[in-house]
């Protein structure tokens, strides 16, 4: 027996040590860096040395913020930066106060060191002119006691609104030019292929500004909750339920809340209301609150799912769109051979849904533009999961979504004012490889869309999926006719 106990200890001890070594809290993304590199930086013609980290996880180059601040001092894009282990503060328009080591190459020791454990790709709190940003950066100590922050080059270019081009470890900065997205270059670099499907459109006019595989059927995860919200609002406008109705928590909802997909613990004796459930669902992406709302509207979630699919049909969404539950989590069919299924749709269909939602219930953005909301009945502070709300000025929503199958999804909306009035730009990114990428792609799309609306179109999105000749059109229609006949 003692021998058995000893064996058990030998087996369990390493496991316990491993568990203790895993950092606490929420890990957003773990980057893997290649060896640090020294690059050349050209600012308005002047040459500097700049420290770089290439992160294979995002396939992007991260540049030393201190080196950049030092090199940009004296230009109209100058900024001061202070970096600690837990916070980055940037003040624009003032010269950089040097701390030592700026624009000096990595020393040999650092070049040989394994940076993986020193720098983690995460959203260290960042403040730019007192505005909070949520950007994935690498913060660590390069020289003893002096912390530095490494930031993705195009993200810094967007933050400072200046032109930066990168070529073979040589970074060119032209402070006289504004940042602008070069769609042709991105297409050539297959930038959007790292996501399953993307769409950028003007929800005010319905005009599609960019699309990548928009009819591909994709799993939509928690972005499904926009449909749940739509049906809840329909029920309110029809007088079936009230915004401040008391909602009782069922066993199923409570069980979900205590499971691994739970966001806020909901006990069966809890009395909450529709308004708080909506906020928890849209901001914190609470799966149990979506389910509670579904049950409150339709009696059971199964009945609510029927309403979701009927609504999809009435909106003219394609057959690719199908809902299985109110929250977007994976679920299992009742068949003899069960299938693991998830809500699915296409970028085009989801844009149709969002366009309708923004037109009929524009108050959705009053909720989705909140960074957080206190929900007293649940004793819960719902924090918005959408990073663009912090990083892109004018962002008013809308919804994140992540499951293993769906990967990372993000539907964002941004207010843009241009010559002919106010517009709402909507970007939809489905199946991005990481939450770093979904934010980055969305930000790039919204920046491009803003330029299109305010400065005019710079790129002509030709849709290769649509027939280009009369014969192709006839063949496509014949296929539709065949499909319908069969």
């Amino acid at each position, binding site marked *: 027996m003692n021998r058995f106990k000893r064996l058990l200890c030998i087996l369990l001890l390493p496991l316990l040590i491993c568990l203790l070594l895993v950092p606490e809290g929420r890990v957003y993304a773990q980057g893997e860096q290649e060896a640090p590199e020294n690059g050349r930086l050209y600012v308005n013609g002047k040459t500097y040395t700049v420290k770089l980290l290439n992160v294979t996880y995002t396939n992007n180059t991260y540049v030393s913020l201190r080196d950049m601040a030092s090199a940009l001092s004296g230009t109209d894009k100058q900024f001061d930066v202070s970096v600690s282990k837990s916070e980055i503060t940037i003040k624009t328009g003032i010269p950089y106060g040097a701390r030592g080591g700026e624009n000096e190459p990595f020393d040999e020791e650092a070049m040989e060191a394994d940076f993986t454990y020193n720098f983690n790709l995460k959203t260290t709190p960042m403040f730019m002119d007192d505005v909070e940003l949520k950007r994935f950066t690498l913060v660590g100590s390069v020289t003893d006691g002096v912390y530095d922050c490494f930031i993705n080059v195009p993200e810094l270019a967007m933050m400072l609104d200046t032109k930066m081009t990168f070529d073979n470890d040589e970074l060119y900065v032209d402070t006289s030019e504004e940042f602008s997205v070069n769609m042709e270059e991105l297409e050539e670099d297959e930038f959007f292929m790292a996501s399953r499907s993307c769409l950028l459109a003007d929800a005010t006019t319905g005009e599609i500004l960019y699309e990548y595989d928009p*009819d591909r059927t994709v799993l939509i995860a928690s972005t499904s909750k926009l449909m749940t919200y739509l049906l809840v609002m329909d029920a309110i406008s029809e007088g079936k339920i009230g915004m401040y109705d008391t909602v009782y928590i069922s066993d199923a909802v409570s069980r979900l809340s205590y499971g691994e997909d739970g966001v806020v613990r909901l006990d069966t004796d809890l009395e909450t209301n529709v308004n708080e459930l909506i906020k928890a669902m849209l901001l914190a992406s609470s799966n149990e609150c979506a389910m509670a709302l579904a049950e409150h509207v339709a009696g059971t979630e199964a009945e609510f799912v029927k309403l979701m699919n009927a609504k999809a049909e009435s909106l003219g969404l394609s057959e690719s769109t199908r809902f299985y539950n109110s929250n977007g989590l994976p679920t299992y069919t009742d068949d003899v051979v069960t299938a693991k299924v998830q809500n699915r749709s296409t970028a085009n269909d989801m844009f149709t849904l969002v366009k309708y939602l923004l037109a009929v219930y524009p108050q959705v953005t009053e909720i989705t533009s909140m960074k957080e909301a206190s929900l007293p009945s649940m004793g819960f502070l719902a924090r918005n999961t959408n990073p663009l709300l912090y990083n892109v000025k004018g962002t008013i929503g809308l919804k994140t979504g992540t499951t293993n199958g769906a990967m990372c999804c993000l539907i964002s909306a941004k207010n843009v004012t241009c010559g002919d009035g106010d517009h709402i730009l909507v970007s939809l990114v489905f199946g991005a490889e990481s939450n770093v990428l979904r934010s980055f792609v969305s930000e790039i799309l919204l920046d491009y869309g803003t330029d299109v609306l305010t400065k005019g179109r710079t790129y002509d999105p030709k849709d290769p999926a649509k*027939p280009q*000749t*009369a*014969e192709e059109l006839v063949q*496509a*229609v014949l296929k539709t*006719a065949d499909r319908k006949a069969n």
Partner: protein
Amino acid sequence: MAARKRRRGFGGVIAVFVIMLLLMSVMIFFFLTKEERLAKQSKWVRQVDLTESVTEGIEDYIRLARLGDEIDVKAIVPSIEYNVILTFKSKGEFDEALDRASYEECEELAYNAFEEAVTALVKKRLEAGGHTGDPTELITETLGCDLISYLKENAPAILPSFDELDSQTKRSTRAETYLCNGNTLVIVENGAEPVLYEKWEGEINE
């Protein structure tokens, strides 16, 4: 005495002649200023016909997909004309500009005809394939948008864009001679054929 009388008669003839000359000059003067005044009082319009080029554009698009001569595009395309508005400035100088409302009307007529021709084509091909479905419904379902929007975005343009036409039309020049009777105006530019304009009652919509 007789000689005095003769001298007086000769002077009268000269006086009458001079008066007549003066009168004729005044008449000519008034006649011209009236014409100029008439021309300047109004705006003038001429029509430019696009019917043929639109018909050719549609025929070119459907040519390779049609089964025979079953679609008479000429019968489908109505008269498509846009207006060029002439405004006199002074001393024979005038401006010409494209009327946006008439261009938009042309565009609507042209694309309605384009839609009709393509729908007829699809209908014929569906019938040939043994299908009986509504071609408009099937086209919309296939494209995910209405046919006119699709044609505007994906098919070759069947008429020049407003900006293109506007840049060709917009000019300020001088007429060599012009004749006006109140309802019609003929402009003759140096070395060019006379151009007939009609009185324009509408508002300029550039």
